Each structure stands twice: as structure tokens, then as C-alpha cells.
């Protein structure tokens, strides 16, 4: 199972773009890359998922290089409400491992 490595914490200011990078050197051919967001006292919430290249939805973009050994979650113009823990997961339906995540703090 591919292990993921993310920064423990990041700080940003309102209106800035935030990029969180996740390393997954041992990613398998069948593995997807999925990012979740978790607020205190809540369950994680799906943000975005990708396999390769770039994926964009209404809240974020996910950049995956050709070798797929890393991925970058990009949050455009963050607000205070984006303060949360962000988890990068690599795996399939029955073997997804949550790491410690990245605690993002957005300041006014």
C-alpha cells in the first residue's frame, strides 16, 4: 500500500491560493488519489479525486505529474472557512489509508 507524506501544517491568509503537496512514491497502477477535508467534530468530506494530469471542480484543482509519485491540491482564494485538516489518500475501494493530514489555518 502506497504511503503518503504531507506537511503537518500550513498557514495562509484570506484570498491567497494554497497548494498542498502529497508524496506517494510507491503508488500502484490501480490507485487513485483522493483528497478529503475534515472540520473539527465532523466526518471527512470529499474534495477531489484524480488518476493523472489535472482535475478541476468547483472547489479545488488537483495536479498529478506523469510519474504519479506526488500530487498537489490547489485551493484558490481561500477563506477563513477553509481552515481544516486536509487528507491525501492513495488506494482503491477497500484499502484507503488516512495519514495524519495537513492542518491548514487561514488567517484574516
Amino acid at each position: 500500500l502506497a504511503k503518503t507524506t504531507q506537511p503537518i501544517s500550513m498557514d495562509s491568509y484570506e484570498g491567497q491560493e494554497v497548494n498542498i503537496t502529497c508524496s506517494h512514491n510507491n503508488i500502484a497502477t490501480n490507485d487513485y488519489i483522493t483528497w478529503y477535508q475534515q472540520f473539527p467534530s465532523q466526518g471527512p468530506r470529499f474534495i477531489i479525486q484524480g488518476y493523472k494530469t489535472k482535475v478541476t471542480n468547483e472547489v479545488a484543482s488537483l495536479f498529478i505529474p506523469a510519474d504519479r509519485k506526488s500530487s498537489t491540491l490547489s485551493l484558490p482564494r481561500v477563506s477563513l472557512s477553509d481552515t481544516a485538516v486536509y487528507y491525501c489518500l492513495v488506494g482503491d475501494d477497500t484499502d484507503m489509508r488516512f495519514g495524519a493530514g495537513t492542518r491548514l489555518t487561514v488567517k484574516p
Partner: protein
Amino acid sequence: NAGVTQTPKFRILKIGQSMTLQCTQDMNHNYMYWYRQDPGMGLKLIYYSVGAGITDKGEVPNGYNVSRSTTEDFPLRLELAAPSQTSVYFCASSYSSGGFGETQYFGPGTRLLVL
């Protein structure tokens, strides 16, 4: 849709007691999961189920049991509660057609304290 619901929200158990954490989803998802989250840590998979009557162990199954008699319900049983089982428990579900990494939808969690 209510999504994934969990009961109770909070429970205090004495060491050695048993209890069942309830989880129900109304999205007709075939996959269901139980995770635990210790303070400041990520989630760890306890058990999962790919359909009614089929369950399998995750990363940390010891001290827990599950059953899946219907598509909607996936209860988690704690036998002989121990302080190490103090945690927040999350149930999740997803729909899989054989693909990979399907989106999981999480419940609000059950906070369990074992004293």
C-alpha cells in the same frame, strides 16, 4: 436523503462493558466502512463491507466485530471495552461498480469514552 447516520453521538462505557454502534445509510451504497480516529490523528480502517453478508478486516480490527445483514445497516460491536478504544468512530459508505477509489460519504461520528 439523510445520508449516513450514526447513533449514539456520545457514550461513556466502563471497562469490560459491551456496546453496539449503529450506522445506517439511505443512498443504496454497496460498500460500507468503519473507522476510528484518535485525537490529532488520521482515520484508521477497522472493518469494511462490500455488500450484505460480506465483511472483511481493515487495519485495526482487534476488539471489534461487525455484521451486514442489510444494504442499509452496518453495526459495529465492541466486546469487553478497553481504555484503548476511547476514540471517535466514523461510519462511511460508497458506491462501487468495480472501479477504484470511489468517493466515501461519512457520518457525523460517535464519540466513545471508556473509563
